[in-house]
């Protein structure tokens, strides 16, 4: 394959991609499922602090665990990511909202998740394409270099012969 045809094919391929692919933008994903006030009513919130043993000033606990139970579905989520109980409560609610959205979708991944999956696939594809293009380009350059060297050698040989 000559250099020119290859370049043409690259352009062609890019054009095909540009017109066919339905691109997903990272900043335009479907929004995260929101935790609504209506959900708050179905919740059972528990704070787990190690149960038995002394409490109050006698012990200094650094962690706080929040457990949320969504009564209609029976989904239980826990959160103890941060030191702050306030923060943990918020995070647990976000987690639960996601789980509820999945549950309402009948166990199927929600729109955002499929979109993220698509986005990742798309990224992977584009990375592969870029790498392939790069390799092709380098191959072509290398071939051109070899050709040039051959020509030079031929030239030198011709000079010597004459």
């Amino acid at each position, binding site marked *: 394959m000559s250099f020119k045809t290859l370049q043409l094919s690259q352009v062609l391929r890019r054009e095909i991609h540009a017109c066919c692919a339905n691109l997903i933008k990272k900043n335009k994903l479907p929004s995260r499922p929101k935790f609504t006030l209506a959900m708050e009513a179905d919740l059972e919130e*528990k*704070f787990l*602090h*190690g*149960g038995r043993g*002394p*409490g*109050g*000033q*006698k*012990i*200094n*606990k*650094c*962690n*706080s665990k929040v457990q949320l139970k969504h009564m209609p579905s029976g989904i239980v989520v826990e959160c*103890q*990511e*941060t*030191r*702050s*109980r*306030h*923060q943990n409560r918020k995070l647990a609610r976000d987690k639960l909202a996601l789980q509820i959205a999945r549950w309402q979708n009948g166990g199927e991944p929600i729109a955002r998740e499929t979109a993220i999956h698509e986005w990742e696939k798309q990224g992977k594809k584009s990375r592969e394409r870029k790498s392939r293009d790069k390799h092709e380009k380098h191959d072509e350059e290398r071939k051109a270099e070899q050709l040039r060297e051959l020509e030079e050698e031929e030239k030198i040989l011709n000079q010597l012969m004459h």
Partner: protein
Amino acid sequence: MVRIKPSTIWQASKLNRFLPFLLPECRSIHAARQELRWIQDESNDDYQVWKRCKLRYRHYPLQYILGSQPFESLNIKCKPGVLIPRWETEEWATDLAHRLPKNRQIHVLDLCTGTGCIPLLIKHIRPDAVVKAVDCSPLATGLAYWNSKSLGISIQVIQGDILEHNSTVKPQKVDLITCNPPYISQSTFVKETSRSVKLFEPKLALIGCFEFYADLIDHQISRAEAFVYEVGELSQCEYVCRRIVEDPILSKVWRVGFRLDANSKPRVVYGYRRVAITLDWPRIFEEFGELKN
């Protein structure tokens, strides 16, 4: 206390070389990893992480190492020499603050304030309240003042010993008195208190028995409309309740109740006047705890 298995220590060391230092205080790999993450998040380099983990190995409180403790939505600064706010206090203080009426000038007095966590939270949730904080330790009042400055919540901080009835804490009328007094008795301090607390937290803020509850009945109750005191054990609740029931005048005027914490331990004794002049206390304290008188 159950010893930590050598296999656990080995496992931890394979995960991270700093992890075994955290095991004596955290007891489990899961908890230790989490704590390590918190330390790493707030440290600049590995050397600092290592130094902090070594401090933790000697049971030095994490809040003193990192310099802060989250208290509801506030980030309260902590310093050695001042008691670290506990989650039990956070729990009842948050509930109480949300119960107080909005857009009303309520006078709140917090005794034994320490870091100032309770008055700061009340003022934060109800900005119209007029909040005063008293502590006898200059370290604590300094820290409470610093906390109020850095959080931008204005409270009045007074240094004075409330058990000594001198002029520093004037017996002004207030609507609500909150207090988290030292409540660990000498014997339980030796037997039940965890090592980290015993070694590094101020005894001034920990050891006490009935002094503050006696002071409440003798002096503070007359100037207040309602009070909320944290307690360590049931006997302290019962003491306050008994003193009020046995007094013919107080028993007619005051209602007393106990409140449990999330671990179902008696944590708060509270009371309010039956006939409230300014605020509807029975409604405010509805279902706050269990009424005894």
